[in-house]
């Protein structure tokens, strides 16, 4: 247990002043603006919004600047800010079938209605450092040209899963309208409903969720996942306003959605069907969305009547209780705070144990 200490005020002030100076860096180089971070380090901003569980690109960019690029520290700042705000209510669940897609790929169907849209992807790049980015000056604007291939994506691009649904080849996700549990309001209770698991995974640390998902692929709770569909785009956020008596758009958020098709489940009465895993993340983050859907599927072993083979990714308590990087950092880093009293008692204990052992050895000699 750590203890309260006093003193050191002047040293702490000096440390924080130095921190501000280090944050600014070399004054011979132009300062980075929040707008530059927001518009040019977009994927870092997206990650801070996803794990901070608050969609606000300006605030996420500010947090990144303040945290000197330490993304977990930035997530912490966002979480802390969020607790100061009143909550007006919940949105109507977003309709991802009406997403304005900029990317949409399927690994299971090559010819799908609406087509495969690559979007602004790192896929198929050569992962060679581009030294042109290091040179001064802006990249030339792309030539404006009409799209070469046919029609623009329509407003309604059906989910790939709908095609499998039609033939009963995959389990259906029936629209239920229950109020979902909220782990920011009530402490997480286990076993957790799927809605609570999805919330915890969506705000979980990307690295942790990725590693858990990877472990299932390597055999620790294998679920044979295919990416049925991955899509990125803007989605309207709608909310019912009691004073108005109807629902309105309050804005738009960018989302990444992943649906996996996984191996079968059937019973004496129901013929085998594909099963599903689901990922939905703020911003553009397909690594996280795919990871989330693999973890979601692995954690569904109980409701699908599968065996628990003891794989870490199937262990709800292990996954959900260790996914949050703010909680983890808080507990991990608190051990650097003053533990003088605890340590003093440990010191006394080890001195006593040693003196007893030395006395016993001397007596034996």
């Amino acid at each position, binding site marked *: 247990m750590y203890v309260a200490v006093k003193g050191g005020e002047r040293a702490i002030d000096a440390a924080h002043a130095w921190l501000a100076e280090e944050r600014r860096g070399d004054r011979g180089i132009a300062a980075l603006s929040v707008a530059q971070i927001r518009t040019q380090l977009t994927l870092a901003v997206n990650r801070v919004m996803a794990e901070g569980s608050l969609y606000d690109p300006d*605030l996420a960019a500010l947090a990144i600047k303040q945290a000197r690029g330490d993304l977990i520290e930035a997530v912490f700042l966002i979480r802390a800010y969020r607790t100061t705000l009143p909550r007006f209510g919940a949105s109507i669940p977003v309709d991802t079938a009406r997403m304005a897609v900029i990317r949409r790929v399927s690994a299971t169907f090559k010819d799908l209605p609406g087509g495969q849209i690559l979007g602004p992807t790192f896929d198929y790049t050569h992962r060679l450092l581009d030294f042109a980015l290091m040179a001064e000056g802006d990249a030339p604007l792309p030539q404006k040209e009409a799209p070469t291939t046919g029609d*623009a994506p329509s407003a309604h691009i059906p989910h790939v899963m709908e095609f499998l649904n039609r033939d009963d080849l995959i389990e259906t996700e029936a629209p239920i309208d229950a109020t*979902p549990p909220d782990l920011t309001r009530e402490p997480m209770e286990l076993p957790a409903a799927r*809605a609570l698991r999805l919330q915890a995974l969506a705000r979980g640390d990307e690295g942790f969720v990725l590693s858990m998902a990877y472990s299932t692929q390597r055999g620790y709770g294998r679920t044979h996942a295919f990416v049925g569909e991955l899509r990125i785009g803007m989605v309207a956020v709608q909310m019912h306003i009691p004073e108005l008596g109807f629902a309105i758009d309050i804005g738009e958020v960018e989302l990444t959605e992943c649906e996996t098709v996984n191996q079968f489940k059937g019973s004496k009465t129901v013929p085998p069907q594909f099963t599903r895993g689901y990922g939905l993340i703020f911003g553009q983050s397909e690594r996280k969305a795919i990871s989330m859907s693999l973890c979601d599927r692995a954690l569904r072993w109980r409701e699908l009547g599968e065996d628990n083979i003891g794989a870490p990714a199937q262990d709800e308590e292990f996954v959900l209780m260790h996914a949050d990087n703010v909680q983890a950092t808080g507990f991990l880093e608190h051990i650097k705070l003053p533990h003088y009293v605890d340590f003093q008692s440990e010191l006394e204990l080890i001195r006593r144990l040693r003196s007893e052992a030395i006395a016993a050895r001397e007596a034996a000699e």
Partner: protein
Amino acid sequence: MTNSPEATDRAAWIGQLARAKPDRLRALFPTLPPYEVLRPAEIGTVMVQGRAGGTGAPFNLGEVTVTRCALRLTTGEVGHGHVQGRDKDHATRAAILDALLQTDQSSALRAAVLAPLAADETAHRAGRAAKAAATKVEFFTLVRGEDK
């Protein structure tokens, strides 16, 4: 849930004003008429929900910052503003326009404010959609050695 045509029309303009870029809205509608504040502009959050599998049971995805306010014009019409982000000026301007669009100034404001906003939005979306369409691919499966 189906709304009356009036409610559908009002929901459409409220949405258009909420999605507008605050600077653009200010430029299109710079001068505010006198009004009485019913609920001062306040910043808060709305919990965005998704659905498991895209269509199933709802879950809490994360929050979004929202600014809201309510006000009344001197002529009596009440306007509501609910806009994503933390811009109180945006929420206020949206609420005033919501109120004014219920008055006889409606058609003038539709032409002066809503139409340009809709045109901006259409152009922006068409630009993104055209870029997306340019990255549309056809994948061909190659015959593998074992498939004789």
